[in-house]
């Protein structure tokens, strides 16, 4: 059962993710999310205003006063609207998170390749260093035969020094690239942990939704039983001029 509900949640989130993937703008996603959050807060406030004094209001009505049952029903609907809005918001947040994590994984993949290239660049620089050293050695021999080669010899020595510096830097960069990839790998894990937490929060909100609905169903049943066992207020509800007498 738990697995089935997980599958349902994942499917719902994935579907939302697919829908979100069609939206190329992260700014739009953020705006959508903010709008959904505002709606969820509004629905919450509406429900809270009705729910906090529901029992007090119902207690002042006769058991069979139709307003009693409709008061419970009204709060129940507000509760459902609140939890539906919360679900919409969490779905959207999860979809955005899903897209972010996918992008982070792609980045990791690209940076892993780039780190390999950094290592190759380090090897290239070493190869160039060896080649220029060989040239320098050969030119040193030729200078003995032709002194005019001293000028290019000095230039070659300067180039050699430049390549040496670059080879050193390439080594450091290769190390830095590996370190950055390790950080990125950890970051992807944290993205995934955040996604998992969001999925669980979504599942928890759906469970709460079910429980609230269950509670309001029992509350409505109680109101009906109160009417059934007393039959008080049935007549007065048909004659509002008498007014409610309240429950004892």
């Amino acid at each position: 059962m738990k697995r089935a509900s997980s599958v349902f949640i994942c499917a719902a989130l994935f579907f939302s993710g697919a829908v979100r993937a069609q939206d190329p703008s992260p700014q739009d996603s953020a705006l959508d999310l903010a709008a959904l959050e505002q709606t969820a807060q509004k629905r919450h406030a509406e429900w809270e205003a009705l729910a906090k004094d529901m029992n007090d209001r119902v207690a002042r009505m006769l058991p069979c006063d139709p307003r009693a049952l409709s008061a419970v029903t009204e709060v129940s609907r507000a509760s459902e609207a609140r939890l539906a809005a919360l679900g919409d918001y969490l779905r959207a947040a999860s979809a955005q998170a899903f897209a972010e994590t996918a992008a982070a994984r792609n980045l990791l993949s690209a940076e892993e390749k780039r780190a390999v290239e950094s290592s190759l660049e380090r090897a290239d620089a070493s190869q160039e260093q060896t080649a220029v050293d060989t040239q320098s050695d050969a030119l040193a021999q030729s200078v003995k035969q032709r002194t005019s080669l001293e000028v290019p010899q000095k230039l070659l020595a300067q180039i050699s020094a430049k390549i040496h510096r670059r080879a050193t830097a390439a080594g450091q960069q290769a190390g830095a690239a590996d370190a950055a990839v390790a950080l990125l790998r950890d970051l992807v894990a944290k993205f995934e942990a955040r996604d998992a937490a969001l999925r669980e929060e979504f599942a928890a909100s759906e469970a709460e939704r079910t429980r609230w609905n269950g509670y309001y169903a029992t509350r409505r049943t109680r109101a009906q039983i109160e009417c059934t066992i007393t039959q008080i207020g049935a007549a007065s509800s048909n004659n509002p001029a008498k007014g409610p007498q309240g429950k004892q």
Partner: protein
Amino acid sequence: MKRLLIGLLFCGAAALIGQTGRDAYRRAYDVWQQAQTNLERDAGTGGAPQVAQADRSASAAASFEATRVAYLKSSAREAAQRRQILQSPAARSSPDLMPPAVADLAKTELQTVTRAIAKFATDKDRGIQQLRQSMERERVALTALSDTIQARQKRVAATSEAAAALEQARAKTAAAFADQSAQFSQTVAQMEMEGTAWADYYDKLAEAIQTANAPAPPPANIPTDITTNVSPGAPRNASASAIPLVRYVGDWTYPSVNGIFHGVQPESVELEVHEKDGHVDGTLEARFKLSPGVKDPVVQFKFAGDVAAALTQKFSFTTSDGTRGVLELIPGPAFNLLEVNFQADPRTNKMRAGNFILVKK
């Protein structure tokens, strides 16, 4: 000349980048290494062939450096684009949607119903018993609800915790990649400096070889019935080269937009080169933009001579007013490009030199 060559090679290299990436510059490196094989060893005793080899090596080195720098820059741009996602905070759920009031409300309802159940506990009335049972079900529902509310509170806290950890890691990773990008930019700048250094080196190397070994240029043989003459190539161009004549022969023009030049900017250039039985003749007509010291921006001369077995075809010319000069035709990096370089003896108010790339008509 050098800057022009580098600029041109850079353009050619940039065109290669998108197609081949790293392989392109590795191939260019191999070409360069092959071109310069034993150059330094032979420089002590060599002559014209080594001068030509130095020229070829310079071109190959410039091609390699330009290709590699272009590749690295392109790669850096792509990386910067990809890393944009590290700049924005990650999505998280709002903890404001789980206010404590929710749990308090459920708790209050539970306490109320529990008190009511206790009140009716001893009442034997059938109807009251029925109501009490209903309240019992309500209490069970509220207890279960309170549990799920608590569970969700824990989940919300866990999400906030995960989001905070993610945010911290994101900032750290973004900083690491920013450092990496800065280092990378420095490396690219170093490579560009190396490219210039290699060009200087090969130039000086060729010069050094030429200084000691260059034979005196043969005397000019100026026919009296034509306005130009031809001398054999100078030592730097005397080595064999298997460049097809089509790279020199034909009608060439200076492009009206995005023309490449060094020195005074041409407004228009028309060059005709003909070849028959190894003999070349042609005309050059050019108009340059006015520059200080030049009142006559028009250059016109005819040239002729035998094809030399060299990459750079070099001809002497004398214009109708008696100005002498040297014309070089150098195949460009593409088949339809030809670099022209001419230098004339200084004359008042006259153009002294020109260096530009022509496109085949």
